[in-house]
């Protein structure tokens, strides 16, 4: 059964889900959702995702939304057959959860605010709040300092192996480096930079990039 993923390939959260599905070897069909025409706010879509956001998935009768819930489900489902993205012990799983929470709260909040100001609002003909971008960039720099210290002690965020915690960062860091002109935040931090090169070289992420381009 092919998993249907509703959302545009250009958006971060669908990219997060596709990266995971590709890592664990689950076939999917990407069904584009036209954000510009407001398709995600129409009644038919709100039935799939009541907050009017992408992505939503449909796996036979089973439906889910929230990208981080979706990746947890598929990673757990395929933990035996594919790469273990969640950890094998309760302690390892807790470390993965910890860094997934860090991504969602400390990292993503800043990246989202920056992307909104630098990329989304201008497309809608609205002005950028430069002071806010500066403020968020400074906060993000401090967060990445913590990451750099963490990654000086282990190759991946949750420990010795690639996990959902690393995967979850892929779309956000891609935005920073390729669209927002803030790649220096990554390059200036040795361990963060090595980590980014390693995780973005994974075959699954390269396939997501191929779909994007």
């Amino acid at each position, binding site marked *: 059964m092919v998993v249907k993923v509703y959302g545009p390939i250009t958006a971060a959260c669908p990219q997060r889900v596709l990266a995971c599905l590709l890592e664990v070897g689950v076939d999917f069909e990407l069904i584009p959702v036209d954000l510009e025409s407001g398709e995600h706010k129409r009644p038919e879509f709100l039935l799939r995702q*009541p907050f009017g956001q992408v992505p939503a998935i449909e796996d036979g009768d*089973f439906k889910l939304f929230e990208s981080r*819930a979706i990746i947890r*489900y598929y990673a757990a489902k395929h933990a035996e057959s594919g790469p273990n993205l969640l950890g094998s012990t309760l302690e390892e*799983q*807790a*470390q993965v959860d910890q860094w997934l*929470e860090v991504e969602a709260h*400390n990292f993503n909040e800043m990246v989202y605010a920056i992307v909104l100001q630098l990329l989304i609002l201008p497309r809608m003909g609205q002005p950028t709040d430069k002071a806010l971008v500066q403020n968020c960039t400074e906060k993000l720099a401090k967060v990445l300092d913590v990451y750099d210290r963490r990654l000086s002690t282990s190759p991946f965020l949750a420990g010795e192996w690639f996990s959902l915690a690393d995967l979850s960062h892929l779309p956000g860091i891609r935005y920073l480096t390729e669209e927002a002109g803030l790649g220096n935040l990554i390059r200036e931090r040795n361990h963060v930079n090595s980590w980014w090169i390693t995780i973005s070289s994974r075959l699954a992420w390269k396939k997501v990039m191929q779909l994007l381009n």
Partner: protein
Amino acid sequence: MKVHGIPMSTAAMRVFATLHEKDLDFEFVPINMAAGEHKSPAFLSLNPFGQVPAFEDGDLKLFESRAITQYISHTHADKGNQLIYSDPKKMAILSVWMEVEAHHFESASLPLAYELVIKPMFGQATDPADVEANEAKLAKVLDVYEARLAESKYLGGDSFTLADLHHLPNLSYLMESKVKKLFTSRPHVSAWCDDILGRPAWSKVLAMRK
């Protein structure tokens, strides 16, 4: 198990609620935030972001309240109240609503709790524009909750789970404020609030603030 934090921190309360629901013994280690203890090297070794709570279970050190609550719920699944599901699909649905709390509810409710309840405690002035914007955001989120709770007794499924529990700290603060009406005016949301705020474990968390 040790929890480092303060009783009034919403994130710390999330962890205390979980421990009380499961009747687990733990040591509460108060952190003097007014004196900046959460930014001290000792604390930063527990949470490099300098935020409360931090948690220790033997050699395991964790931070991020929602990672801690999940660790406790999985590790002590056999104790006290069941807060997660073992069935993968049921657990996935529970995860959806944990994410909803973490992103949609938290982003509107935490600034409101801060502006309307916490700032006044410290004699600081409320920002009315901030309150208005977040009130509107929260109202939209609660509309979705109203629809969800019309078809499901609890947010994550048919029993009380972490998906509901994670809301308690912010919810409890907002019920002390003028935005209480956002909750009481929506029948299913109102009934759900009464239900979860009335749980004995939550009363124990509130007692820690005295």
